[in-house]
Structure formats: C-alpha cells, structure tokens
C-alpha cells in the first residue's frame, strides 16, 4: 500500500513537472512576445522592448528561467516589470503585465468562487445523476427506464453553453427566480453565497448528471448480473440490501473514478459558467488573461488548474484503493 502511494505520488509529480516546464516555456517559445504584450509598439520602442526582455531574464537559457520561476513559487523573488522592480513574495507567480499587480494576490481571491462552484456542482451531479441511474437500472427495459434515459440524452445533446445560457436567461432574467449577478463570500453570508450559486450549481449539475445517470445505470446493471448478486439473493437478503449494500457498492467504484476526474476539471475553473453568471473565478480570470496576452496570469492559472486536476487524480487513485480491497495489497 505504501509503495503504491509513493509510486502514485512520484508519477503525479512528474506530470506536474512536465506541465510547469511547458508553462515556463510559454514565455520564450510561446506565440506572444512577452515584451510586446507588456508594452506594445507605439508606446515602447524596439530598444525599450529589448530592455524589457533583458529585465525579464528572457535572454537566459530556459533551464535558468525555470529555476527562477520555481524559486519564486517556493521562496519569492524580485521581478523587474517595466521600469520598476517588484518584491514578489512566495508563492510568487510573477507580476501581471496589464495591472502590474502580484498575480498570486489576484488569483488567490479567485479560488474561493471556483471551489464554491465546483463543490456545489459536484454534489448536485451526484445527487441527481446517481439516484436517476439507480432508478433506471432497477426498472431496466421498462417505459420508466426508457423515458428517464431518453431525457438524459436530450439534455446531454444540448450544447452546454446553450443550456447554461437558457437557464440564466429564463430563470434569472425573465422570471427572476434566481439572482442574476454577484458572488458572495461564504464567510460573509452563507445564505447569500448559496442563493447566488444555486442556479450555476443546478445548470452544471443537470448537464453533467445526465452522463452520470447513464453511467450509473450501466454499472448497476452490470453489477446486477454479477454472480455475487445471485448469491446475495439466494441468502434471502431483502431487495433493498441486495441493491444498496451489494450492487451499489460494486457500481460506485467506476463512478468515483470518473467523478474524481470531472471534479478536478471543475476545480480548474468553469469558463462558461463563470462568464454567464459573472462569478469571479479562475476560469473567468484565465479567459481575461488570454484575451489580454497577460502571460504571467495565464501561466499561473494553467499551473494551478493542472496541479488541481493532477491532485484530483491522485486522490481518486488512493480512494480507489480504499474502495477496492483487491487493490490494497499491492
């Protein structure tokens, strides 16, 4: 078990390393020139831009840039941006080209909203998708099954942004059932926090839940056909115990696997949802940074999202070994 954990962590770190190298390489090899992005032509002369490149250490070999960047994250560093030098404390992700503010200060406030959206959406996905899938699995082949699974297909075939946009337009704007804008921090007011997020949760939850409904149905039906379900029945166990203790227990393992990956993606930021509902999260910030070629912010959001997704995968794998005793021994 310990060996498994160690191996899994090492491979996660390797992936993270690869992502971080790519992130640093954006500066030198990326499509946009950092000096130009920071200070475009009419404003800055070519000589001035060269000076900026030097100040950003872009003339250094890539591995030195990498070490600089990583040192910044771990212990902070001094950064030259334009004419000024900034003291950038750890974790230092650089200085925004556009706002000349510390990227970390900017981003750390974005984590709360994104995590709020992700947790609520994740819970909604499971609360809607899994029971529907179980319902359909227990009535497989009946009209109820076909109706439920058919409607999940309809929902899923609607493009996600359209679904969210329609939900927003009708439920928030036209009927005014849900608030249109605004994010409230959980610590300020849990009620307002939740109320502002209900619609994004439902929208994200419904769309993804349809996938989970079909997935749960499939893995429950698979479990129902297992020999150990026949054993459970032949022991005289009650139907509910056969379904919940035996079948669901087996079906939950693959569900956890894909949920971990999806949840990681949600934590990385949901651009459409944040854009439509005006939630100041990571997704929105990285979208803004991309349109402005604000490289340090793009680097930071990419790196953080990647770290979150990788962490989610590690957690799933570790959780998997808790769920499946056969994995535990390795």
């Amino acid at each position, binding site marked *: 078990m310990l060996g498994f954990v160690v191996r899994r962590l090492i491979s996660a770190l390797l992936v993270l390393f690869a992502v971080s190298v790519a992130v640093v390489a954006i500066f030198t090899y990326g499509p946009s020139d950092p000096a130009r992005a920071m200070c475009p032509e009419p404003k800055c002369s070519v000589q001035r831009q060269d000076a900026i490149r030097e100040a950003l250490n872009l003339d250094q070999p890539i591995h030195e840039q990498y070490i600089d960047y990583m040192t910044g994250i771990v212990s902070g560093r001094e950064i030259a941006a334009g004419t000024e030098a900034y003291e950038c404390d750890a974790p230092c992700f650089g200085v925004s080209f556009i706002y000349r503010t510390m990227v970390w200060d900017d981003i750390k406030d974005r984590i709360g909203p994104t995590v709020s959206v992700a947790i609520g959406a994740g819970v909604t996905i499971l609360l809607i998708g899994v029971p529907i899938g179980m319902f359909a699995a227990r009535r497989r082949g009946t009209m109820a099954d076909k109706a439920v699974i058919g409607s999940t297909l309809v929902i899923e075939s609607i493009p996600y942004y359209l679904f969210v946009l329609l939900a927003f337009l009708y439920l928030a704007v036209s009927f005014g059932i849900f608030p249109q804008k605004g994010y409230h921090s959980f610590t300020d007011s849990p009620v307002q926090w939740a109320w502002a997020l209900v619609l994004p949760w439902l929208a994200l939850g419904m769309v993804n839940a349809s996938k989970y409904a079909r997935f749960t149905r499939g893995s429950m039906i698979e479990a129902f056909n297992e*020999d*150990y379900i026949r*054993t459970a029945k*032949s*022991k005289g166990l009650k*139907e509910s115990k056969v379904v919940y203790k035996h079948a669901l*227990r087996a079906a939950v393992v693959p569900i956890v696997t894909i949920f971990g990956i999806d949840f990681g993606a949600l934590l990385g930021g949901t651009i459409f949802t944040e854009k439509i509902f005006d939630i100041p999260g990571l997704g929105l910030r990285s979208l803004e940074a991309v349109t402005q070629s604000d490289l340090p912010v793009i680097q930071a959001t990419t790196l953080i999202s990647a770290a979150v997704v990788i962490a989610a995968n590690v957690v799933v794998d570790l959780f998997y070994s808790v769920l499946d005793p*056969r994995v535990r021994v390795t």
Partner: protein
Amino acid sequence: MSDVSNTLGGTPTKDGAFLSVRDLKVHFTTSDGIVKATDGLSFDLERGKTLGIVGESGSGKSVSSSAIMGLHRGTNAKLSGEILLDGVDLLHVSDEEMRKRRGRDVAMIFQDPLSAMHPYYTVGNQIMEAYQVHNDVTKREARKRAIEMLDRVGIPQPDRRVDDYPHQFSGGMRQRAMIAMGLINNPSLLIADEPTTALDVTVQAQILDLLQDLQRDFDAAIIIITHDLGVVAEMADDVLVMYAGRAVEYGPGKEILTHPEMPYTWGLLSSVPDLTASTEAKLIPIRGNPPSLLNPPPGCPFEPRCDHVAKVGGDLCKTVLPELTPARSGGNHTKRCHLENPDEVYEAEILPEIAPDLVED
C-alpha cells in the same frame, strides 16, 4: 400409478417426498420466441439423500435449480408445475415468504466461488449477513457463529481468516466458505451448482467429502448439479440426466451408471476419461451440439446426434417425443427413448467401446 404420471411426462411419484418437483416448466419469453429452458421436469428427493442432475451446458440444470430457489421471480421467466418442499408449493408462496425461505430452508452454493462472493466485503461479513437475515442476533453472536461455521468446514485459524477478503482465500477455501455460508442456517435442502468445477482435482475430492460429512450432520437433502459423472458416482443416490430441458433418464445412481438405457447417457459415459482403463479404450465425444431450445425438433431432441436412430423403425425418432417410461432393467429407473432393447444395444455396442475389460466377465 406410474401410468398416470407418465402421461404427464413425469416420473413415478413417491407420496410425501421431502422435495417433490412436478412437471416443472421454466419458459423465457425473448424477442425471438419462447425459450423452453426447462420443459416438464419431475423428480423427488428425501432428506439425507443426494440427487445428481447431469447434463451438458444449456440443458436446463441450473435454470431448474434457480426455480427451486425462486430466483426467477421478478424476471420474465414463466414458471408452471409444482415445487413441493415439505408439502408447501414454492411456486405459489408470496415473494416475501420465498425470500424468507431462501437461505433458511433452501440454500445454494455456486460454481465459481470467486465470482460468487462479493469482492468488496470480507468473507466473515458475507457469512454473518446470511445468518443475521434469518436470525435475530447481535453482530457479535453472528460473528461467533460465522467463525464456528468456518471452523466446521475446515478453514484453519477461522477467527483470523474471518476478516479476510475473498481474494485472500484459495479456490478451495473460498468454496469451503461458500459452503459455510450456505449451511449456516441449517437448510433442509442444499443445491450445489457445479460446486467443484472450478477447483483442481485434489480439492474437488475434499469438497465432496466435506459435503457428504455435512449432509450426515445436518440431514440435508442435496441436489448436486454437475456434468462430471465422477462426481455423480461418488455423491448421488439418484441421478437425473437432463437433455434440452427434459429428463431423459432418471433412477438410482448405480443403475444409471451401470445399465444406462438412453443413448445420450451412453454418450456422456463414453466421454469420461478413465484413468484405470487400458490405453486402447477410446474417448468418444458426442457429435454435434444440443438443439436450440427456441425451436426444439418435434421428435426426440437427441435424434440429430443419435447413432441409434436406424434401429428404431420408421421416422419415429424424428416425429414423436418419446415418453419417460420404465427401463427394461426395472426398478425405479426410467428413460426417454424409442429403442426396443436399449439394454442389449448397450451390452453389445457401447460397453465394449468404453470399458473393454468389463465385457470379459
């Protein structure tokens, strides 16, 4: 008496048998038509006795035993006939009543103990569960009982192994644990569905011994489903040979194995390798495949594969399903075959092929 039941396609009834299955039919409705998995099966079994049900895959052995367990409830299977256990017709008790009887009165152990046990729960948990569902006991008492049963079926260090998962058990131990689970409520009927098929030969013998031991202790009736005639020879008091959902030969085990009167049974005997026989003795497989149960041939279901059709006059085998009639050798032995003199055919043609050394005597 026997005439009446024969017209029903049954075997001679013994009144008040502990388990009495009468004209059992299990039909599945599929999009291609009705599959007659079991079609008019009758047999009797007393407490303390063992019935061996033999046949190829798809002959209806497992479907019939699942019917006794009531495992077809809630599926699209249509069942008819009677399954009388101690006088109660299991086909007509409520679902809840049947559930209460499952595991308590009738228990079942399965072919592959690895897939038949839940991989995510400990062996002890699964055995305790079987006990707790039928007995109002605390967890501690159930655990104590589970350990007792594991000890009884010969698991070493049962108090420690009770917390192991099925994958930590060897194949033979898993089957022992399954048997412990099946017998924990002292069921009066135990159905063993190919209990040794997935095990290696030495372990097979241990498991069969264990079953016989426990049968003596618990005075249970056992139905052992197998395609291994060796298992039948060792275990069964009575033997029922099934083919295409029907009994084709039924009688005392010794009778069936020494004086079979149905060509299908001959085929089964011919395909058993005999270690003690001379190397001259041939291993003869039955040619062809079992018929589709969707569109069974109108005559004898074994006719397309039978080598003895020519000995029966006309196209009787092709057109008329033979009844289950008393065998020439008498006793309670019945067979389903049009041959006039199957016993003579067996002596003259089959025995020299499969056991040349026996013909000399």
